[in-house]
């Protein structure tokens, strides 16, 4: 398979990069939606992130690569085994592509035809959702995804569990993954239910700054010509970022938030009129991840500010008579709350 472009070599697009890193630090945030112009490196960034993720421990031989240290959330097989018995291996965090046009049985899993024919036994062949467990599920052109697959994804994403009843076979396995979607708004809108699922939402634009654009084109061109050499140039940067990410993942449960910050975040969400509490909760959690990435033990308003846009952008109630974009509204509200 072709070598992906290094994450650290992506020029500009800071908001997108930050959102992806934050989602990688805290897998429970609900993933990232990247919407924007063509040729801005949306899928490049997601594929690059896959290279950056530190390897994870998984139960050896488990088709769902369960976490050996947490048998509670594991598949029936691993859950039944006593803790000491599970041998573990290190494996790369799965980043699974859900290609457009994937059929339903490949997504949820189906009967293993070969085994059924060869041995006459009914065995379950896990699908993409099983493969993405504890990792990332990436959907490019997410707004073109078939409706029945969207329903299915929403269901699994909400319950963290995939249930398959097929040909007299009943399988239930954990499927918790970070959903990453990308798309171009000109191709069509995203269903509101799916939009809500994403923790963070990023708008990517073509850089207007010529120097940035030149640098982006130069790097891509160099990469296309000699991927090996190009990746070697960025190997040190990649390693540094990987360490930072590993440290942040460890650090994030310990990060504190002061009451004053909580109050201001609440004020911000009230001022913006976001529906429900999810915006608030997501923003606080995302701010913690930002703090963890910066190795700070306290999440402050500076961290909130850094991630407020992606955390809230898609949660504002759309006011047709307000011609100001959501980004401007968030900026204004932030400025007010900060003063």
């Amino acid at each position: 398979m072709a070598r992906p472009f290094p994450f650290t070599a992506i020029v500009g697009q800071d908001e997108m990069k930050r959102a992806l890193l934050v989602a990688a630090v805290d897998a429970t945030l609900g993933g990232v939606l990247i919407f924007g112009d063509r040729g801005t490196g949306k899928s490049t960034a997601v594929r690059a992130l896959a290279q950056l993720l530190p390897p994870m421990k998984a139960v050896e031989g488990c088709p769902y690569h369960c976490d050996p240290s947490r048998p509670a959330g594991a598949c029936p097989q691993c859950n039944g085994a006593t803790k000491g018995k599970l041998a573990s291996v290190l494996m790369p965090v799965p980043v699974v592509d859900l290609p457009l046009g994937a059929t339903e049985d490949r997504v949820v899993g189906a009967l293993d035809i070969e085994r059924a024919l060869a041995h006459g036994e009914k065995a379950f062949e896990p699908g993409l959702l099983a493969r993405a467990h504890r990792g990332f599920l990436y959907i490019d052109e997410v707004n073109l995804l078939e409706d029945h697959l969207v329903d299915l994804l929403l269901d699994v994403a909400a319950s963290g569990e995939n249930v398959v009843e097929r040909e007299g076979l009943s399988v239930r396995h954990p499927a918790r993954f970070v959903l990453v979607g990308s798309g171009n708004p000109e191709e069509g809108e995203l269903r509101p239910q799916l939009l809500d699922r994403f923790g963070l939402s990023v708008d990517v634009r073509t850089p207007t700054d010529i120097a940035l654009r030149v640098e982006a084109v130069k790097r891509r061109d160099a990469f296309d010509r000699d991927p090996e050499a190009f990746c070697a140039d960025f190997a040190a940067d990649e390693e540094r970022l990987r360490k930072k990410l590993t440290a942040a993942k460890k650090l994030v449960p310990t990060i504190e938030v002061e009451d004053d910050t909580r109050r201001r975040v609440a004020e911000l969400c009230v001022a913006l009129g976001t529906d429900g509490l999810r915006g608030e909760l997501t923003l606080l959690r995302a701010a913690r991840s930002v703090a963890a990435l910066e190795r700070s033990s306290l999440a402050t308003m500076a961290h909130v500010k850094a991630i407020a846009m992606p955390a809230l952008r898609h949660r504002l109630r759309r006011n047709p008579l307000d011609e100001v974009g959501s980004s401007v509204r968030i900026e204004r509200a932030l400025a007010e709350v900060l003063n």
Partner: protein
Amino acid sequence: MTDGTGRSAAIWEDALRAADLIAVDPDGLGGCVLRAGAGPVRDAWLIRLRSVLPAGAPVLRAPCDVGDGELLGGLDLSATLAGGRSVAQRGLLARSHGGVLVVAMAERLARTPAAHIAAALDAGEVVAERDGMTIHSDARLAVIALDEGLPEDDRPPAVLRERTAFDLDLRALSHRDLAVALPVRSADDMRAARSRLASIQGPDSLIEVLCATCAALGVGSVRAPLLAMKVARASAALAGRESITDEDAALAARLVIAPRALHLPASDAPDEDAAAPEPPPQDQDREPVPDQPENDKGEVRTLDDTVLEAALAALPPGLLAQLQANAQRLRAGQTGKVGEAQNTVRRGRPIGARRGDPRSGVRLDLLHTLRAAAPWQRLRRQAIAGDRAHPTIAVRRDDFRIKRFRDRKQTTTIFVVDASGSTALERLGEAKGAVELLLADCYVRRDEVALIAFRGTGADILLPPTRSLHRAKKELAALPGGGGTPLAAGIMAAGLMADEVRRKGRTPTLVMITDGRANVTREGVGGRAQAMDEAAMAARSIRAQGLRTLLVDNSNRPEPRAGQLAVEMGATYLPLPRASSRMISDAVRSSAAAQPVAAR
């Protein structure tokens, strides 16, 4: 030789050159969009391309309604049935690896297959997760998107135009123009060019120049300069050079950047050099050099001048208006089209099948059901072998596939009528008539109609969205008129209703009937200046909503303020003094019909 034939010859020469370049670096350049009707010109171009491709390189053809299975691969039905086990079949993309995939009538290619092709162009491989199999195959190929180009607005999907280097327009050529031919390139020449490609050197500043040219012409995507760079490199390789010259760069600008241009440099910012190719930031000291490009032929011409000029020269004269229209269309986005497409299981154009129960009115897709059942036949036969009367084909409930369709969304036409002043009664009367006429054929089109009137101090919803002719007639029977013109209130009420309509899954269309002379503010007090300002602001929000809008100006002679309002709203302006019901309803209908119908 007239000027016209000279131009035709130049176009043909460029087209042939593009074919050669694609053959040098097929997957790097991604191919091209070829805009030409079926005929000798297109055939001659394809023959040329075939002749320069490596021997044995596949040249496959995909129809515009190509299915996922065909494109990506999947279950080979006959082999599966014969062998009793699932046998994979490679799709068109995988089989085109190392060659060319020709997409016929690409302007009608649906989004999903276009996205698959785009993904293959990006990744150089296809991954299909279908029919119980995962198929990974290499797919480094060039795509030739044939665009018959009959309606001006129907173009191949943007995802393809974005990823293919060239957009060739050969519609103006006839077979008489084909006399010019580039030197015949032997297989050895081509092989040499391909092997030279990796070592081609270019001036470091070229990328900067290409980026600046793109910026000057409003080309946003970074793919454009990248493709231009690759074209320049392929051009140098083809000419047998070791490094890129100005000539190669100019060719790249002409063939790659110019067709993507959204505006001319001058039209954007005539006062500053922001629009002209900016010199790279580190070269500040080049600025004070006396006069720049223009007629200064004696001076040393810098590369960026050459490149931008090449791009500009490739733009046909008088294109400015069209470019601006392009840009406007882009900004307007795609929402608001009459009858946006949506997927359903009951009616519309068939778009495939999914697992499901063929009850509750949905239709069974027999072929796909049999396909799903195929791999299991041997096993099922074994399971029921004891039974003497076993069926020839065992189909289980899990195999059932139901048909899916794509349908137009239904439209709700919202009339917003200015019921103020002296002409109010007449105007309202005509609007009422138009509503009734539209409702009369709404049974066929399954459309709804609503009516909002504004007068005095505010706007009223006289008729919420309805399909009932009876009810509409009853409610429209007695409507008051007269008073001031609270235009902003009217527009805002329409905006709110349109949003509601959209939330119900219908496509709203606005028809405003007014003279655009606002004199009452949103608060309901008089004041012409403020009322006009507010109306303009409300109008802009309508445009931001991306609504399809028709503004009927019914003043006695076209009122500039109404025209201005139409611009602010992004509306089609229609001056119709003394508009009759029939004229209005015809206008609404024809403006709906003029919409390009997507996904057909």
